[in-house]
């Protein structure tokens, strides 16, 4: 509550001084524990801002809405640490100018929602570095643990079952702050690399390619997982990719605004034990 009040005040200050044209935050949703995105442009709207542990969606994706930042005015946004990492990646990939972004950082990991120190993405580099130091949680989730224990055939069967439900609505893509392409690979039809039909084969292809495109870029915000209307545990796939690039290339997505994409760079000493 303290953080919420503090931030409401700050949002109003910034609006009053014309320092931001909009702040993207959360408000009460349609049920008690739902929060929905809120675009604050007035004091009245600022009073609707809610900040509590139910504010889980990563709002960073709204920043790349076409035209939002093209007037070079500043926009404020409520972000958890993963969200801040998304900002860094979007900046590193030239999708936004981080100087235009005022961050209202918050952390919901404790009992109380905690405000994070800083307003510009670079202010949080210490925090992000400390997150990187913590090894990515391995198999902390019971289901993930189960997947890890499976043999290859069982894993295939598991994912086949999961992907068979996919309806190719692309909600995962739309919800993902990293999926900013003007034309998604799946919409590129000359040639049609990915089968658009939502049979299991096409669903496999789609999910494989999406995971690959997110390798080294996914910050694990969980937007895709929550958006999936058929409850495919997408977070595990992306987390495994994150773990892979961390272990193999010491790459932790979104540490800085100058981070090179892990798949557009290389190290001559990269592991190649798997190569015959």
């Amino acid at each position, binding site marked *: 509550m303290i953080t919420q009040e503090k931030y409401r005040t700050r949002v109003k200050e910034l609006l009053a001084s014309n320092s931001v044209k909009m702040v993207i935050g959360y408000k009460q949703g349609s049920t008690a524990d739902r929060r929905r995105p809120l675009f604050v442009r007035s004091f009245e709207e600022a009073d609707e801002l809610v900040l509590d542990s139910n504010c889980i969606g990563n709002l960073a994706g709204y920043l790349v809405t076409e035209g939002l930042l093209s007037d070079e005015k500043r926009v404020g946004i409520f972000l958890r640490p993963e969200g801040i990492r998304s900002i860094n990646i979007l900046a590193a990939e030239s999708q936004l100018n981080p100087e235009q972004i005022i961050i209202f950082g918050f952390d919901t990991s404790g009992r109380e929602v905690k405000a994070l120190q800083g307003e510009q993405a670079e202010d949080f580099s210490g925090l992000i570095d400390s997150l990187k130091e913590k090894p990515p949680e391995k198999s902390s989730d019971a289901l993930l643990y189960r*997947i890890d224990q*499976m043999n*290859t*055939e*069982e*894993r*295939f*069967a*598991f*994912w*086949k079952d999961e992907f068979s439900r996919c309806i190719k609505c692309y909600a995962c893509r739309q919800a993902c702050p990293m999926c900013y392409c003007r034309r998604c690979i799946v919409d590129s039809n000359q040639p049609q*690399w*990915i*089968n658009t*039909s939502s*049979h*299991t*084969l*096409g669903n*496999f*292809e789609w*999910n*494989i*390619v999406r*995971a*690959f495109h997110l*390798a*080294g870029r996914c910050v694990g915000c969980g937007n895709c997982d929550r958006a999936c209307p058929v409850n495919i545990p997408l977070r*595990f*796939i992306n987390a*495994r*990719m994150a773990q*892979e*690039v961390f272990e*193999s*290339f010491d790459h932790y997505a979104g540490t800085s605004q100058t981070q090179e994409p*892990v*798949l*557009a*760079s*290389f*190290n*001559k000493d*990269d*592991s*190649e034990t*798997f*190569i*015959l």
Partner: protein
Amino acid sequence: MSEPFEPKIIAFVCTYCTYAGADLAGTSRLKYAPNVRIVRLPCTGRISPMFLLKALQKGADGVLVSGCHPGDCHFTHGNYHARRRWMVFRSLLDFLGISPERVKFSWISAAEGGKFADLINSVTEDIRKLGPFDQYKELIRETETPATL
């Protein structure tokens, strides 16, 4: 008696090293298994994971990707990029239950005709032992059956 299983293997190779190595195996008249179909590309850097998926869709039981040794790339470092992609892609396939044993990677230089022949033989044997990739083929079959609902 059913016919003995002949694996279908699709290989994606770079033209400067492995394709040349394959040519050398030919000019040296080395003999190797006829199960591999080669797709020639300028560089391993051009080889996209999508190619591998399409090879599987075409019923490949195994996929082979091969290019220049590190440092040998005609394009200086296409193979370094490729190596990273493969590392990640392999791990992804593994996690999703597509055995990395079916997706092989190798470095073969233009000088290694012998290695090429040996590799084709060993990869063919490996895939033969793994047997047909029935799980993936099942997916392909599913796409061809009408909706039953």
